[in-house]
């Protein structure tokens, strides 16, 4: 080991790395803009990543098919029996279906007036590092995507926000990321809090509801939505359900563990809200 440090170049390199590393860390702490090099690299890389992601899904579906073959055989028999029963029921339910269809049309019309302007996007890559919970989507500035636009899954379930925008790609910082925070409200009681990513909880796919007073009216199973405070997220996007309630270290407040409404790790497609605060 002494031989290693006999060479002054090695020692100088270590010193240089420490200085440069700290400088880079400080300079990038508030970085929001995408550099031209990042943009060009990702424009080239993202189409190939998209291809690889699709191949990956194909391979996993293929092997999944073979592993499930026995299970499927028994399921087919059960389904055949169920099928004949259902055919009888279909005839009986025809009138109900027509009524349902009409109601659905009315509901869609109503939603059409108040819904957000959504841009559908595919998830093409995850962050290569274990330090960040972000993923890349195949839509960018060319599709009208802008910084901080909220990202949701079906059912207006909050996924995160746009944290970086390239020409044909964007990065989504997900709600479980440690750099992510959003104003939150409990639907049942109206209590407010801050929903934030926590490195300890992120591994299980959960996040934290902080700044909840000790006497706040919260129970396990409560639904948590965005409060609309903070200027990024509109009110009412579903964050998730309370899974655990714990006292804070100081004992003057408490925090809750939230299980997100959507399975973020296995998302394939999302929607970007292009007019969140209209």
């Amino acid at each position, binding site marked *: 080991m002494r031989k290693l440090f006999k060479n002054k170049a090695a020692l100088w390199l*270590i010193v240089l790395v420490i200085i440069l590393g700290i400088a*880079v*860390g400080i300079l990038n702490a508030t970085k929001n803009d995408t550099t031209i090099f990042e943009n060009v690299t990702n424009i080239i890389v993202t189409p*190939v990543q998209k291809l690889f992601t699709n191949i990956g899904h194909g391979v*996993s579906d293929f092997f999944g098919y073979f592993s499930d073959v026995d299970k499927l055989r028994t399921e087919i028999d059960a389904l055949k029996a169920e099928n004949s029963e259902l055919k009888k029921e279909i005839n009986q339910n025809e009138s109900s279906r027509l009524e349902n269809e009409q109601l659905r049309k009315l509901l869609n019309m109503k939603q059409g007036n108040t819904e957000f302007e959504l841009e559908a996007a595919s998830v093409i890559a995850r962050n290569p590092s*274990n*330090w960040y919970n972000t993923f890349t989507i195949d839509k960018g500035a060319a599709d009208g995507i802008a910084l901080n636009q909220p990202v949701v899954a079906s059912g207006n379930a909050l996924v995160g926000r746009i944290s970086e925008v390239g020409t044909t790609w964007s990065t989504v910082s997900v709600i479980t990321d440690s750099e992510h925070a959003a104003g939150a409200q409990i639907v049942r009681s109206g209590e407010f809090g801050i929903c934030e990513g926590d*490195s*300890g909880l992120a591994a299980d796919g959960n996040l934290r509801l902080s700044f909840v007073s000790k006497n706040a009216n919260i129970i396990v199973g409560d639904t948590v939505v965005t409060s609309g405070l903070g200027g990024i997220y509109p009110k009412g996007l579903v964050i998730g359900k309370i899974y655990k309630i714990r006292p804070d270290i100081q004992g003057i407040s408490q925090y809750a563990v939230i299980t997100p409404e959507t399975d973020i*790790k296995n998302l394939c497609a999302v929607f970007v809200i292009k007019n969140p605060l209209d």
Partner: protein
Amino acid sequence: MKVAVHGIFLAFFLIVQATWLEAIAVFGVKPNLFIIYIVTLSCFCSKKEGAITGFFFGIMLDFVIGKALGLNAVLLLALGFLTAQFCEKVIRKNSVLIVMLITLITSVCYELFYYVVSFVGDLEFKSVFFRTLLPECIYNSLMTLPVYFVIKKLSNRLWVDKGEIIG
């Protein structure tokens, strides 16, 4: 020829690290192919080559991660240089176990430095250490096994000048 080989590995890692590696993540932690490649390569090549390759792999990784631009470049440069120096001066005859051990140690240094520069004060160390840092370092060490044999095979053709230190 060497540049082409590094280029192919770089392109492959940039794609796979962000896509297919998710499928082999253990407890949400995936290995870092960039560290594994640079460390293993540096056990077979010169300090200069280890440092330059480390820098280019790092800067490209920074572009894709999109955070702390330059940090991976600086860290992988240092990792490449120091590993090559260590293998040249201290270890006369490397073996897969030694390279796995070097990967484990360098991964710990790399991830600790990354934590100190980017997350200290924001993330609780104990949770980061046991949930991310330690599993990733062990995973990196294990994944060195296949990478070692690929690079060893290639080294016979590409790095013959340092053939005497190959175990």
